[in-house]
């Protein structure tokens, strides 16, 4: 695999291979020295055109734990603010001969375009409302650890599906792993035709008790140029996941950051059913696995407990 641009591009077997790799990195995280030399001498560029806490910090830390040299560029404070185009920025950063470019961008297809402009492997860390494949992988990883398998699991994705790349990537990933997915939200926030991706659509929470997993989405107020719901109060009244609506046997997930009191109540976030902290922890090992898969090759050996493992690939050769 040269790039990770979408979940759509991955087969179930490829998803499982990345998750298996992530399991082995979880072990590395329990050591005193949480570092392996796999990507020693190679450069990873992280290029973020949108604000991010979890994705950018976990990709950065993942690259460091694999011993790569990391260059982090944020749109704010860089030449992007001076009007440099994406293409020119990528050309500039490609001059450092990076092994990988991790990019987040506010528009769909940005990562795919970047892949056409650079020799580096490209990781899509979120492109507009399109895809967020590493989020989907870490969510499948988290669920797989809890459920063993997603086969036949019923998962409800609730909230602002229209503006959510997480909803799209997760719907595709969950379905590929054998789960049955329902997307739920007010009709103004459900994209027309989404059912053709292989999900059920519900405009109310009626029937959510059937779900094993409730995946709540953030109300993306920053992406909303207009009012899609009459008020957040009414939204919360209809769609907020709270302790009354969350059945004790259901698992609760959310990609973060949470609008407390909007899509989730405080007690739901802090309940033992909530996997939100596990999702964040999974983010690190899954992103290590992604970089490993792209840069060290899918066939290379898993890093051993002694921290030796695979030889670093010489700089400049692409995986």
């Amino acid at each position, binding site marked *: 695999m040269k790039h990770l641009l979408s979940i759509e591009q991955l087969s179930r077997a490829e998803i499982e291979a990345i998750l298996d790799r992530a399991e082995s990195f979880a072990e590395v995280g329990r050591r005193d020295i949480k570092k392996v030399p796999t990507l020693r001498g190679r450069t990873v560029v992280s290029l973020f055109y949108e604000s991010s806490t979890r994705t950018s910090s976990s990709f950065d830390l993942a690259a460091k734990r694999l011993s790569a040299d990391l260059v982090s560029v944020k749109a704010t404070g860089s030449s992007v603010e001076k009007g440099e185009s994406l*293409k020119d920025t990528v050309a500039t950063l490609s001059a450092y001969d990076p092994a990988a470019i991790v990019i987040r961008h506010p*528009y*769909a297809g940005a990562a795919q375009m970047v892949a056409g402009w650079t020799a580096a492997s490209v990781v899509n860390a979120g492109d507009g*409302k399109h*895809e967020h494949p590493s989020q989907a992988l870490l969510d499948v990883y988290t669920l797989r650890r809890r459920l063993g398998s997603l086969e036949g699991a019923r998962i409800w994705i609730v909230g602002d599906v229209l503006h959510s790349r997480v909803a*799209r990537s997760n719907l595709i990933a969950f379905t590929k792993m054998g789960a049955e997915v329902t997307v739920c939200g007010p009709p103004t926030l459900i994209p027309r*035709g989404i059912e053709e*991706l292989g999900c059920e659509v519900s405009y109310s929470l009626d029937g959510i008790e059937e779900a094993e997993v409730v995946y709540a989405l953030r109300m993306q107020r920053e992406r909303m140029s207009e009012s899609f719901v009459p008020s957040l109060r009414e939204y919360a009244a209809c769609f907020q996941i709270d302790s009354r609506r969350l059945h004790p046997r259901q698992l609760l997930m959310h990609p973060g950051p949470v609008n407390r009191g909007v899509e989730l109540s405080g007690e739901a976030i802090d309940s033992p059913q909530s996997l939100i902290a596990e999702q964040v922890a999974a983010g690190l090992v899954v992103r290590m696995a992604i970089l490993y898969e792209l840069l060290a090759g899918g066939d290379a050996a898993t890093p051993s407990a002694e921290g030796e493992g695979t030889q670093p690939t010489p700089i400049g050769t692409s995986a």
Partner: protein
Amino acid sequence: MSAQRELVTPSLRDQLDVRPGEDAHLVLRRATVIDPGSGIDSVHDVVIRDGRIAGLAAPGEADADGAEVVEAEGLHAFPAFFDPHVHLRTPGHEHKEDVETGTRAAAAGGYCGILAMANTQPPVSTAADVSALREQARAGASVPVGFLATVTKDMAGDELTEMVELREAGAIGFSDDGLPITDAGVMRRALQYQLLCGGNIALHEEDPRLSMGGAMHEGPVSAALGIGGIPSVSESTMVARDCALAAHEGARIHVQHLSAAESVESVRAAKAAGVRISAEASPHHLCLTDEEVRSLDPHTMKMNPPLREERDRQALIEGLRDGTVECIATDHAPHQPEEKDVPFEQAAFGVTGLETAFAALHTELVLPGAIDLGLLIERMAGGAEPFDLPRPTLAPGAEANVVLCDLDAEWTVGEDGYESRSANSWCAGRTLTGRVLMTVAAGQVAFRLRSFSLGVAS
């Protein structure tokens, strides 16, 4: 030419502007001639003398009489095409296209006339703007060009332009193309005023409150890609509104670039009810669907109105067949790479089409049997009449507007570059079957394919 002849056969050269050149003297020897308007579909020698169709002679029989003889056996001669919807980007965006490059592209596509849209920078809103453009066309246009002026001042959508004066300056018609006229009151007044000034009003139909800044057709593909959708109703509700207004005022409208099945239905119903309405469809809407947008390629697949679904495409084709859509218009919209080398949602709307329209439609619609060649030729030249311009014809005595094609030639679009200044062709990289070899426009040879060698008789 004599005044009497002009009365008998109105010419594009009289009504539009073109660079003066030499009148063609040509014999197209043994060409397969198809002119549905004249009921011709057989092999002839086409004789062009003094820039006019002198007549059709039996194959091999025409006397060269000093004319250049083109050995056209196995080639096809049609009335040349007319495109009522081209963006020449002049003034203001000459880095994308200008009168010279845009009309060269038209000639290369087999067109003998085009109409240029007014959404330039600044927009064509005054008589002086029209006069300046006409001057440029007389200096550098390879094929006759007509200029539309805006309906509203600077396309702001609120005040009408001085439509009488614009007509007197030579504006062929009016359009705010690029933007809809959202205010129904303004639209109604424009239609009322048309009864005074004449000139068709060409309409870009879109309700921006329904498009909501979308970048592609709203449907399952936009849902999958997470790209904001432009729903079909954004177009069809406005088409229905303007059909009703035109009916109410007895005015005439031309609906541009139909894309949605519901819009075709509205136009069909309006025509049946006697509304004075004409409509066009673009080659890309006739050949492609929103499935192509999955590539997220902004160079070739981003335009407004957007590519819609297969049922819409089929409705447009049915519209061509039954005459609801009387003409094909390219909406040739050149852009430079920096406006397209950006993620899909950020890229400029529009693709070029003049150089490929015939070949693309021949390849995608005629060869698979969706429409026959005669119908394509008729619709390719159907854009003149809605603007009171003479339909290109091969009838004897007519101004020579002829295109010579090799229907078997395969070529890869973009391989030899473009006549247009811009390269955002939706056909880029596609292999098409059928190629324009030569175009005679307004009696002048406007284009010859470089590799097309001509046999000259002694």
